[in-house]
């Protein structure tokens, strides 16, 4: 085990135990105020728990009277905002970690350049932080955190403050750099968990509600939060240049990143509300269609959720009545290619 942490904080109703293996990326999912960020603060040494211990790679960081200060923990924290030091250039921001560990200026800058290259921000090296866009700033912040060579990287909703248009590109950067990094990522976004994490831990009301492989948690959610976020339709398969093909379905969609090559593992994601339901396949339009058997019909807000195996469609009550749906009915689910996001998996 790389990280073992137990912590309880009475004020925040937090009482958790969490383990992260070396090289593993764990996603902490949960509603606002559940205690996800508090867990990160405890691990980073920014918040002293009432009781508990933190052990990282055999080193005791917190236990009883033992208290290792944040700078000596080997734990880097990446927050929602890039928080780049405004008075330093991008290069010197990234060189800050190596410099603080006592390496020479030249060596630190060389390390910084390597990490800037890694996140695709080489050309930003000489800029000041105020000359960067939000997405550029966060790329640099990722490089800065990694340049410190942390044993553990903590990411606190690293994409929550960014424009949705640029999150897919940044997610790809994170996916690449987290490949060999032990990390905990706090997120609201199911896709982050799905694409970046090896394992999902759901935190509710200050304690751990469930934990497991992402697909398992989504397929059989045991916590309320997981069930709520599991509402998205996911199709896993291989990208053939046009569509994600699984054994029994093919979904045409828009890759969020251009570096997806035919044959790559991919996942197509679309919202149930984007799915239309027909009795017979509609002709002409550029839609994905799949013939399915209805497995359940349930109310979902002011709509009707039609489930068919692992897929779901949200339609109006009137449409459901028109279609004369019942469990077992054979229908066609249809979704526009423009409503389908495709991600490398």
């Amino acid at each position, binding site marked *: 085990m790389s990280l073992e942490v137990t912590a309880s904080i009475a004020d925040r109703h937090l009482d958790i135990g969490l383990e992260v293996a070396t090289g593993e990326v764990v996603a902490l999912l949960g509603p606002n105020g559940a205690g996800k960020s508090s867990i990160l603060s405890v691990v980073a040494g920014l918040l002293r728990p009432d009781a508990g211990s933190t052990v990282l790679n055999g080193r005791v960081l917190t236990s009883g009277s033992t208290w290792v200060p944040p700078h000596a923990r080997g734990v880097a924290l990446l927050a929602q905002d890039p928080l780049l*030091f405004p008075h330093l250039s991008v290069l010197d921001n990234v060189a800050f970690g190596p410099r603080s560990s006592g390496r020479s200026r030249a060596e630190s800058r060389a390390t910084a350049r390597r990490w800037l290259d890694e996140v695709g921000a080489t050309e930003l090296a000489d800029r000041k932080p105020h000359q960067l866009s939000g997405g550029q700033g966060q790329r640099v912040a990722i490089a*800065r955190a990694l340049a410190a060579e942390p044993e553990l990287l903590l990411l606190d909703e690293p994409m929550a403050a960014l424009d949705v248009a640029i999150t897919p590109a940044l997610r790809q950067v994170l996916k690449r750099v987290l490949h060999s990094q032990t990390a905990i990522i706090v997120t609201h976004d199911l896709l982050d968990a799905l694409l970046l994490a090896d394992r999902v831990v759901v935190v509710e009301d200050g304690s751990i509600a469930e934990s497991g492989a992402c697909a398992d948690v989504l397929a059989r959610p045991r916590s309320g939060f997981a069930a709520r976020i599991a509402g998205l339709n996911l199709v896993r398969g291989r990208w053939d240049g046009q569509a994600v093909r699984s054994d029994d379905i093919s979904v045409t969609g828009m890759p969020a990143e251009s570096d997806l090559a035919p044959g790559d593992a991919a996942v197509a994601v679309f919202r149930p509300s984007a799915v239309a339901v027909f009795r017979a396949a509609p002709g002409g339009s550029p839609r994905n269609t799949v013939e399915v058997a209805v497995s359940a019909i349930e109310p979902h807000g002011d709509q009707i959720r039609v489930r068919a195996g692992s897929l779901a469609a949200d339609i109006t009550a009137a449409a459901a009545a028109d279609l004369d749906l019942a469990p077992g009915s054979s229908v066609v689910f249809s979704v526009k290619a423009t409503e389908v996001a495709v991600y490398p998996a």
Partner: protein
Amino acid sequence: MRSRTGNVGLPGWVFVPAAAGMLFVALPLVAMLSRVDWADFVDLVSSESSVAALRLSLKTSTISTLLCLLFGVPMALVLARTSFRGQGLLRALVLLPLVLPPVVGGIALLYTFGRRGLLGHTLEVLGVQIAFSTTAVVLAQTFVALPFLVVSLEGALRTAGQRYEVVAATLGARPTTVFRRVTLPLVLPGLVSGAVLSFARALGEFGATITFAGSLQGVTRTLPLEIYLQRETDADAAVALSLVLVLVAVVVIAVARPGRELR
């Protein structure tokens, strides 16, 4: 009155007392300028006693400002970045010289460092005589100027917040490195304006100085004391020297004007 866009506008009557107030500040300066004896100005400000006073003022104010930095920066850090019981009381104590009449400050210093003061005997044993020396001038100035630095810097530290410091620490920077490479550069504008305000306050110090340090030419007679003395014998010299202090004040305000951002 035209208002800028995005401004909801001010009630018209506000401008009347505002203008009166500004006039109240400006008029005495104009009155003083009108009394300056321009023909003899250079002679008046370059007399032996004037030059000695100016030199002493600049020297003691500079040392006082350095002392304010030496003690005020750590004080501001402790006030802004820690919390402990009695901190509010301590802050009030630090700010006391700001509201205390300087004469009272001078008396307090006299009973601390004076020959018969609290530390006077100890200092005398050590062969140190502070009262009525240039050292006393520096102490008096530091005493009244210190709160200016602490207040400015504490405000700057609180505004800057700790978020950058937290990031720096998690990147492996020790507290001293964080202070040197992150905290200090971030609050530099606040530190500069605090230091300039302290310098200005030290330069204008009168009450505590005359009480605690006396008025010996070249030793403790700073420019404000010189002006006060000259006023009784040579009003023209007093006005000319006053103008010198006004010029210094203008420079100080130009350097420390608020709203300048570090980019």
